[in-house]
């Protein structure tokens, strides 16, 4: 039985009809012409969400005033506090701690462990369960220069070249220097890395690497990292206290504007908690769930940019937040695979992108952003895309070409996980094409930090996907898992140093919020939305229009 319904079967006939000719062309080494540099620019400008003027606008207030961000981001940067209409008693903190960690993914948990090692008391606020995060979703791997033929020097070059030399050199230096320390730390905590029998790490190349340094644990590297660091944090009940389903909704500052704590919100009982902390770390991850311009995302349920919003209000500057990684080939059918990544490898093996009429419409290995623009154009402008039963646009990725070009069984051998993920729903991707559309994958920029993870606001640290600068405007695979652990750990160590210099009797006020909301008024923003949004809303309109509150 095929997982594609009858209607799709009919559409697939068009792909099958044009396939032999396309295969012949590919065998002759002929390819669909790539766009010229001028076309590239034109199409990117017209169709790529990062370049289009439409859907982007300058933010009117705050440290990055005047800078252009996606509409969804700008609107949230100009949002008002959840607390502004509430009476809240800040005089008696519910918790006092050395370090408050906001967001328990990889970065937050690494920070908690490092601070705990230094004897600090750590309180962890997290939105969902501990570990429900983007970290747990990473499959590919984590980089670190630990082989004899490699060194942090070459890792540095790879990272900064990959980021088109827009990265912050101090951050790149910190990350590549610490990489082996992090891998060693994970090994000592008992992470099950892929290894040779003698203990040597198995490493692979990744996009843009000059040496093999991608470490993995099966195809669930992020999940294994998260399981291990979380398990260790749970062992430290004496120093690490974890509050699940209690996200932070606002920072607290003293009269100087230094960060002294935060307000948390219990999602279940709806009550707030006031926390006083010597240091506060924001490690709340990315913003995929803002669904910039309606894109599906690979991100977890809680990736809603909360940390950025709170930090921005407190005066923290942002960097490169206008740069977003869209992956050109995210699955749109079947529904349960929506947003799922299809690696570049599939196109590398010869699969072509094909429209509803079975026509090829772009060179399959354009740079990621250009390829995304081509697909968007085909679906929304030319209207030669396919619409799924749940109303999603997409084009075909003609994976059966792979077996025809490279021999029967290549798909199963080279793409085992993807093969199974579709097979489960009755689709054999070695015989039937996949339906894809670009998907929102990674937030390139974020809060500006230094090598010690400090932000521009005293008392406030930032680490992980929420921070910007380390990858510049383009991230290479395998450096993000690394980044979150390196700067998470560094934040924990810096917080310990900071705690030594702070008494922990900081005044707790919402002064910065009052000031920020005044600036909203001054900028003529009359009806700001309320932020952070905490969770995305997927209630369909037919229910929403009838809901009472």
């Amino acid at each position, binding site marked *: 039985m095929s997982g594609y319904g009858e209607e799709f079967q009919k559409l697939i006939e068009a792909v099958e009809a044009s396939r032999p000719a396309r295969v012949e062309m590919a065998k002759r080494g002929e390819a669909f012409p790539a766009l010229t540099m001028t076309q590239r620019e034109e199409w990117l400008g017209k169709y790529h969400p990062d370049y289009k003027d439409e859907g982007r606008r300058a933010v009117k207030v705050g440290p990055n005033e005047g800078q252009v961000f996606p509409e969804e981001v700008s609107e949230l940067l100009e949002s008002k506090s959840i607390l502004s209409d509430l009476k809240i008693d800040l005089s008696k903190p519910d918790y006092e701690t050395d370090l408050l960690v906001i967001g328990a993914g990889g970065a937050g948990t690494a920070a908690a462990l490092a601070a705990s090692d230094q004897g600090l008391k750590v309180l962890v606020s997290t939105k*969902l369960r501990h570990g429900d995060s983007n970290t*747990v979703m990473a499959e590919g791997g984590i980089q670190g220069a630990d082989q004899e033929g490699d060194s942090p020097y070459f890792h540095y070059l790879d990272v900064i070249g990959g980021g088109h030399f827009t990265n912050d050199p101090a951050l790149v230096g910190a990350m590549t220097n610490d990489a*082996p320390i992090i891998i060693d730390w994970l090994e000592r905590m008992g992470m099950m890395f892929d290894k040779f029998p003698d203990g040597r790490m198995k490493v692979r190349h990744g996009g843009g690497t000059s040496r093999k340094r991608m470490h993995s644990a099966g195809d669930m590297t992020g999940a294994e990292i998260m399981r291990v660091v979380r398990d260790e944090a749970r062992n430290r009940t004496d120093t690490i206290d974890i509050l699940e389903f209690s996200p932070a909704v606002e920072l607290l500052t003293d009269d100087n504007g230094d960060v002294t704590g935060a307000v948390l919100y219990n999602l279940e009982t709806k009550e707030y908690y006031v926390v006083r902390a010597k240091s506060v770390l924001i490690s709340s991850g990315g913003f995929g769930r803002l669904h910039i311009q309606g894109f599906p995302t690979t991100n977890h349920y809680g990736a809603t940019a909360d940390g950025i919003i709170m930090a921005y209000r407190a005066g923290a500057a942002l960097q490169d937040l206008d740069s977003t990684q869209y992956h050109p080939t995210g699955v749109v059918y079947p*529904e349960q695979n929506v947003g799922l990544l299809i690696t570049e490898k599939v196109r590398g093996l010869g699969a072509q992108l094909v429209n509803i009429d079975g026509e090829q419409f772009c060179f399959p290995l354009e740079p990621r952003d250009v390829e995304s623009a081509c697909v968007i154009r085909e679906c929304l402008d030319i209207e030669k895309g396919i619409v799924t039963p*749940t109303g999603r646009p997409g084009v075909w990725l003609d994976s059966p070409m792979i077996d025809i070009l490279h021999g029967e069984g290549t798909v199963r051998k080279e793409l085992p996980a993807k093969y199974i993920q579709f097979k489960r729903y009755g689709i054999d991707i070695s015989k039937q094409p996949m339906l894809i559309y670009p998907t929102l994958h990674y937030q390139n920029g974020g809060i500006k930090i230094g090598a010690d993870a400090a932000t521009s606001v005293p008392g406030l640290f930032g680490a992980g996907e929420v921070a910007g600068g380390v990858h510049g405007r383009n991230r290479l695979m395998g450096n993000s898992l690394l980044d979150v652990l390196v700067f998470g750990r560094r934040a924990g160590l810096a917080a310990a140093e900071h705690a030594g210099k702070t008494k922990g009797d900081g005044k707790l006020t919402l002064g910065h919020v009052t000031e920020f909301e005044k600036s909203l008024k001054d900028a003529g923003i009359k009806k700001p939305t309320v932020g952070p949004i905490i969770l995305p809303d997927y209630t369909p309109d037919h229910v929403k229009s009838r809901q009472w509150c």
Partner: protein
Amino acid sequence: MAAKKKTKVVPLSVGDKTIPPEGAKMIPIYVMGKRYIIPETLTLMKAIEYVGYKYTRGCGCRGGICGACGTFYRFEGDYKLRTGLACQTVAEENMIIAQLPFFPSNRPNYDLENQKGTPHEELRALYPEVFKCVGCGTCTRTCPMDIDVMDYVALMKRGDLRGAAQKSFDCVMCGLCASRCPAQISQFTAAMYVRRVTGKKIFPKAEHLTNRVEEINTGKYAKMHKELAEKGKEELKELYVKREREPDMSEQGKWLPEDKENL
């Protein structure tokens, strides 16, 4: 109503919100016993949202790896109890579903750095209940990741911790197995301990890694980085373009670049 006029209205699904096109086949499902009508092909998670629930618990990655969405279900008129992950299971006609957003499990603390006994002895001390497994196989039938849970429990009992670690590797820690165990075992927390002890004590340590960390601690690479940071963009570009690429088929641990400076 003065509807906002748009030049082109395309009823496309936004993000994860589902907008079924006209003519979609509608089917009944029961969310915690209550009947709702939903369009076909949704996952249980999206079906639950479609009928109007907003998740707080029971939803995490939405991609089948975090284990937040363990679900029990039956079909009307069928005695068989089934399980799945809500984000990975397709809703079918007359499914009666209930998620298990939390289940209390047993997880004693331990200090991996200071254990006196062998890993197997420590396991027995931490999780004596594991050794009381009655071999009923319910856990294996329950696991939504198709893990042979009973088998990894058996391997633990026998002392084959490496085997148990490997067998349990795909565990997403949803807790469904533990919720059904007549011997009250928290299989997945015991497995977590077993995997860590395996990664730490049973797998040999990577010597090249230890050596590299020692080198880093001499400050050698920080110095190189400082020099790189002082270079202009053009000079960096040149170094970037010039760097030698390790061949795909190189033998690990043997291959060295021509240029051995900066290693």
